[in-house]
């Protein structure tokens, strides 16, 4: 029974991680692509680690799996935020289908969007 649950979780996590990689290819601009990659590290890795915890009846392994998830949850948002912010500030073009850019509008008052400001 436990092996079945572990296999299911493993398959689920792999599909999610694959979709994230596929999203990087499929989505149009750097911000939406960052969104796709940050997904793999939450639900994808989360369920793979849950599978590990189910498969091994060992306290040490389970503690480590929990720590992996914890560290990912602490570091991943910071990395995603920094890459996205760097992309936006360095003037990476937004996709033409972008509905609104309130950050660009607001910074226009103080010298235009970051991408058009003098370095």
């Amino acid at each position: 029974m436990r092996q079945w649950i572990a296999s299911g979780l493993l398959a689920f996590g792999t599909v999610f991680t694959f979709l994230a990689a596929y999203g990087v290819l499929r989505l149009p601009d750097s911000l939406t692509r960052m969104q796709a990659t940050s997904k793999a590290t939450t639900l994808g890795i989360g369920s793979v680690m849950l599978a590990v915890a189910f498969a091994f009846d060992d306290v040490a392994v389970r503690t480590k799996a929990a720590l992996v998830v914890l560290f990912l949850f602490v570091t991943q948002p910071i990395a995603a935020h920094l890459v996205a912010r760097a992309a936006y500030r360095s003037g990476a073009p937004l996709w033409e289908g972008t509905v609104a850019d309130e950050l660009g509008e607001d910074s226009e008052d103080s010298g235009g969007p970051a991408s058009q400001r003098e370095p």
Partner: protein
Amino acid sequence: MIAWNLILALVWCALWGSFEPATLAVGFLVGLLLLGLLSRRGVIGKVRYVRKVERAVAFAAFFLWELVLANLEVALQVLRGPKALRPAIVRVPLILDTDEQITMLATLVTLTPGTMALEVSEDRKAIYLHTMHLPKGGAEEFRRTILQGFERRVKEMVEP
């Protein structure tokens, strides 16, 4: 107060003669129950700890649920391709005041896929979020969901 809770959990484990994580977890819960009971009867004075733990657990449940929902949503979005996207950068007013609370909000928002913290205004009155799919109600509706969902809950959790 958390120290008392941990001591009670350890005593529980010692009495059972087993320090398995499951025993520890049950011990922690029993300790929490005891502390709640004692504080309600006024034996150890009014304690905010129990309510704080309750709120933290409620928040964790809410967050995990949001996480799964948002993940499924973004996965569908990737499969449907760019045509289904409505990306936008939206300014959300901040009702949180300390740096720690803002960091927490930004982290949680970024952890739920589909939304990502992009920038905090210099006066710390607004946070700019990137979303993959702006709801039908436009930026206003998006602002409302963040304000009433994440921000309110973060505020509730840190405040007594």
